[in-house]
């Protein structure tokens, strides 16, 4: 499989008035096309920094980032999904979904709008098309946010803890929904999360990051049987893998204290 994203020895420093914060230390990894990859690590270790670098919102202090084989990042290839849904309350669901198209004004606008409409129908949101986001539930809102991202047909999806603001049950079902949507649309996704079981159940590959400055400590391929993330949680291996990652994260914390 072709690599869609490559980090080669990427270093990143945040500049502040009285300090320089070393955020990423020699981070290297590859992400294959159509795979689902998770980044886990202690909070504040620089997971979101990796996403921001990928999205071109930041530029690395040193090292190389290759998106689709190119060094200059074409933001149109990337879809970003945030912790909050950031739906615009004054726009209807449909207007929220077509927001990106309104901004980018692609040449084949009609086709893209038709595609967006199809997505809405496919994922059971068409009936709510003309309603304002405030009448939707939290899980539905995140689904609308995902479709808003997919409507731009990005090659790579960046998911920055998209489930963390939801209650547990909604979260489990939404994990299934998002996973099946991303797989059926054949997208590559990078998920940032601090929930190990979420990462284990959803991904093909997990990058375990260390404390700041973050390095890739371990790469895990869960390879759990089961079609949906929820089913995968029932796997015997699940507990072992969970334990493995948990130890790595905890070890990092005690190390920091000493």
């Amino acid at each position: 499989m072709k690599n869609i994203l490559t980090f080669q020895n990427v270093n990143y420093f945040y500049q502040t008035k009285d300090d320089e914060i070393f955020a990423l230390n020699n981070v290297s990894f590859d992400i294959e096309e159509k795979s689902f990859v998770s980044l886990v690590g202690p909070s504040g270790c620089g997971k979101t920094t990796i996403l921001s670098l990928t999205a071109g919102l930041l530029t690395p202090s040193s090292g190389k980032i290759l998106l689709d084989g190119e060094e200059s990042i074409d933001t149109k290839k990337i879809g970003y999904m945030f912790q909050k849904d950031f739906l615009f309350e004054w726009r209807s669901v449909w207007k929220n979904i077509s927001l990106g198209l309104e901004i980018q004004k692609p040449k084949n606008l009609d086709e893209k709008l038709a595609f967006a409409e199809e997505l809405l129908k496919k994922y059971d949101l068409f009936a709510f098309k003309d309603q304002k986001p405030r009448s939707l539930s939290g899980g539905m809102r995140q689904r609308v946010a995902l479709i808003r991202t997919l409507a731009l047909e990005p090659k790579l999806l960046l998911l920055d803890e998209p489930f963390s603001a939801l209650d547990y049950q909604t979260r489990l079902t939404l994990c299934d929904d998002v996973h099946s949507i991303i797989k059926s649309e054949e997208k590559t996704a990078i998920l940032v999360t601090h929930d190990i079981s979420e990462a284990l159940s959803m991904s093909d590959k997990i990058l375990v990051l260390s404390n700041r400055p973050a390095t890739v400590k371990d790469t895990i391929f869960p390879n759990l049987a089961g079609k949906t993330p929820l089913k995968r949680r029932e796997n015997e291996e699940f507990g072992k893998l969970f334990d493995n990652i948990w130890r790595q994260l905890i070890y990092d914390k005690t190390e920091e204290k000493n």
Partner: protein
Amino acid sequence: MTKQKKKIENEQNQFSKKEKEIQKTRKNPPKMHKNKKEIKEIKNFSKSHQLFVKRLRRDKFVIVFFRIFVLAAFLGLWELLTYTNVIDPFFISSPSRIISQIVLLAKDGTLWGHAWVTLYETLIGFAIATVLGYIIAVLLWWNEKVRKVFEPYIVVLNSLPKIALGPVIILWVGAGTNAIVLMCVLICIVITTMSMLSAFLSVEEGKILLLKSMNANKFQIFFKLVLPSAMPEFVSVLKINVGMSWVGSIMGEYLTSKAGLGYLIVYGGQIFKIDLVMAATFILCILAFGMYYFVSLLEKKYNPKTKS
């Protein structure tokens, strides 16, 4: 037997009908926001709910009743005290005197002239201040460096009592309507700029990031996100400006004028004709309330609840 059978069949029919209806609603989920008519139609609530609604209505009635009562009592007492000469109406006038004064002014035609002059000055000042203040806020939002340069000056201007500039204003634009409008503008513009700027700046950073990740430029960020999310704030600025612009025009008329309600008030005071002062104030009240009412209509359109 047959009767019973029919009964059962009937019930079954009804049941399947209900089932179909349920399925229908499942296919087309009902709108979340029903209009009033629809709500009335489905009003088959329990007795306790009916009682609750009744109580709500009664409370509302009581409030409206006492509102009117307070006004009537105030006017009645005022009239009574002055009519019986407990208090000299020379100092506080009286409702009947105010009315006859207004009728007098209306008859000789000066009332409309005076009211129009003040209304005109207020509306022009209000419009200029709102538009200009808004544009300045946009410019300051646009460029962070410019904003930082001007920040302290805006704070100083805001705390400066604008009336102090009165003589200077007259020197600049001459006595008369121009000076009054300028006073009105000066009073409203700083608060407009400050409120709008803070509304622009309080837009969630993440939403801006979202638009940036969609490749939006600054124009698009402003028109698609910042402007609409600052709309509720804009309406409340309009409401503030309604009050402030009347302050500005009346203050301007105190300074320099040959006509207007402020002029009538000053003139009435100078010749000890409190009836005239009160009559002008009363008309001022009505005009200001009318303008406020128009703005509050706007508020319903841009319900602040839509602000996330």
